[in-house]
């Protein structure tokens, strides 16, 4: 019994060493997962590249956490495959996948000091690390995370951000090449979240590790991700750089989910080379706003709040509301029954009830098919 355990331990150690020296890329191919009647994931094919910060973004219930759990081995897919560095992982135990998992609720051992919390994974019988080696590793991680001065404190003497750093550190000590992170910042207050965002991003670059990060917060996704994968109702909607996802959303869902305030979506219909935006009582030459091929007779026109200019143009709207966000302002402009969201510079002064001319940046129009909700062109 005992020697079998030893053999297993040493073979795993070897496995991990090998992984540690190679690439760290995760591939999901046609992954399906069902929980009872709920189809949690449908045909997920996704590649997380070596050294990449990939963010999986979606609303609650989209299947983000399930995806992450399948990569980590905490769940098995019903169909499809998971590869890490080209090796098929289906059926491989979580601890043999060389992934570190950082949860939303980082659970630190309350009776152990920060040092012992960090050392804990290394002291597991599986790894059989020498204490002197452990000390080296813990101190290295503490230095990287700037928590050296906290090593002798217990978790209840730490702030939320410090606890989060310790949780990260505990994931780092084993020197994994892949970090799976499930909303690790969501329990922190807004200020700390901003600071941790920068730290996390530079940490990832310094480690050169692969981060597969889950969040429902589109700002977090845009700012952290090298690429963002948007998931909704178990179906992957789009994978792209933050700019691609923001400027060229694949469909109406992505268009509305990414960006704050939401993209303006206007119903339009085409007739004799003209685009009619009924909500705004506006008719435009189609050739001015659309360079692509054939369009259906009905479309949805998408326009970001910063692509409407106030104070110029011929059309006029009424200021319904002004929201000061500090660095800029959002004006809700009423045109007939339509409310347009417009981003204006912080210096701009508008008052409620004022009539203001507005101009739509035609070159920024996006067209969606109202039936399929896909972007056209």
């Amino acid at each position, binding site marked *: 019994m005992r020697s079998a355990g030893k053999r297993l331990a040493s073979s795993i150690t070897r496995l991990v060493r090998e992984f540690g020296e190679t690439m760290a890329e995760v591939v999901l191919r046609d992954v399906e997962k069902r929980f009872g009647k709920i189809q949690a994931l449908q045909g997920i094919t996704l590649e997380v590249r070596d050294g990449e910060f990939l963010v999986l973004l979606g609303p609650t219930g989209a299947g983000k956490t399930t995806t992450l759990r399948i990569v980590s081995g905490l769940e098995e897919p019903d169909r499809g495959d998971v590869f890490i560095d080209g090796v098929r992982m289906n059926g491989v135990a979580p601890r043999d996948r060389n992934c570190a998992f950082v949860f939303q609720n980082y659970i630190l051992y309350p009776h152990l000091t920060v040092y012992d919390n960090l050392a804990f994974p290394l002291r597991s019988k599986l790894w059989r690390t020498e204490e002197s080696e452990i000390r080296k590793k813990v101190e290295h991680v503490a230095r990287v995370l700037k928590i050296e001065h906290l090593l002798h404190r217990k978790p209840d003497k730490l702030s939320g951000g410090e606890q989060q750093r310790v949780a990260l550190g505990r994931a780092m000590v084993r020197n994994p090449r892949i970090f799976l992170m499930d909303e690790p910042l969501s329990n922190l207050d807004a200020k700390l979240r901003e600071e941790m965002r920068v730290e996390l991003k530079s940490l990832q670059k310094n480690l050169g590790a692969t981060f597969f990060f889950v969040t429902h917060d589109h700002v977090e996704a845009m700012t952290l991700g090298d690429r963002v994968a948007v998931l909704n109702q178990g179906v992957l909607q789009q994978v792209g750089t933050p700019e691609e996802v923001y400027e060229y959303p694949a469909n109406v869902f992505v268009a509305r989910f*990414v960006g704050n305030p939401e993209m303006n979506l206007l119903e339009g219909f085409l007739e004799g080379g003209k685009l009619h935006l009924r909500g705004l009582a506006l008719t435009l030459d189609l050739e001015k706003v659309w360079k692509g091929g054939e369009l259906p007779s009905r479309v949805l026109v998408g326009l970001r709040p910063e692509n409407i200019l106030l104070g110029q143009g011929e059309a006029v709207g009424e200021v319904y509301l002004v929201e000061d966000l500090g660095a800029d302002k959002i004006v809700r402009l009423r045109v007939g029954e339509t409310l347009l969201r417009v981003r204006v510079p912080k210096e701009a002064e508008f008052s409620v009830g004022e009539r203001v001319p507005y101009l739509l940046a035609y070159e920024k129009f996006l067209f969606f098919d109202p039936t399929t909700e896909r972007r056209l062109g």
Partner: protein
Amino acid sequence: MMERVRLEGLSKRFGAFEAVQDVTLSIFEGEFVVFLGPSGCGKTTTLRMIAGLEKPTRGDIFIAGKRVTQLPPARRNIAFVFQNYALYPHMTAFENIAFPLEAQGVPREEVQRRVREVAKILGLEHLLALRPAQLSSGDMQKVALGRAMVRRPQVFLMDEPLSGLDAKHREEMRAELKRLHIEIGATTVYVTHDQIEAMSMADRIVVMNEGKIQQVGSPKEVYLHPENLFVAHFIGSPGMNFIPLVFLGEGRGFRLENGDVIRHETMERLAVRHGVRECILGIRPEFLSIAASGEIRGNTVSIEPLGYKNLYAVEIAPGRIIRVEDMRRERFSGNVSLAVRWEAACLFDHQTGQRIR
């Protein structure tokens, strides 16, 4: 302007913990006042004292000129809207809104009329027959608001009413609440920890920390002219950048942590007048820009795209990272220099954390 609520030396102690310390404030008729601060700052306790749900340890509360400190909640003529809407699940939206009037014995026709009036303002007319379980969270919050409005109270008290909603609904409700306030002009005291809610909704913001008022002012005032480091950091996303400086004397400028010296006459005069040596330059990310020959040298650590602008993290001294906003699509990396828009810069006393002016 008529004073609607007055807090005078209001304090609250829970055991050894001083939750609220000496809060004095006037709230005027039709004003939308937001109490803003991190959790534990005393904002909710203050609101609960105004409502009569908590007895102050010291101080007084006046509503419409009348001292109400000792009165029970029901006799203060206020309406409280909670975080969790506290609707009756077995009643329809109509019945929920009508409830306070029926409890007062208001005649049936008047109840009908007033509920419909409120429902119209809130856009709830088509939902009146539904029960809470059949409503979206945004509509439930509107029903809770309707129930508060129907009594025509002197003051609306709201405790993080939007925090149960997801981000998209929160944004919409924020705008609707603000618009509603413009239309009906009810005096409102609103509590939140979300600085964007405070900035976008308030006529005046009361920033609290550790039981004390830090600053009272319009969103613009607290954003552009924060009284101290706490307010400067708490307001804005990201908050104001803090750059430590050592004042070398008039005509000699300020020394940055990296040894560089920067010069600015007005700032130097401020430092002289205040007799300060160690100070902190406060500057918001949008008032810094990446320029060919700026005052502050740094090294970009990360670039965060927000779609319509990029947010840079720039290290200007070991471990000192500041944030810079840039509207250009072009990305800058490596060594950069930052230009300061001095007219928007603040100077703080390093010792006290107070703004020097």
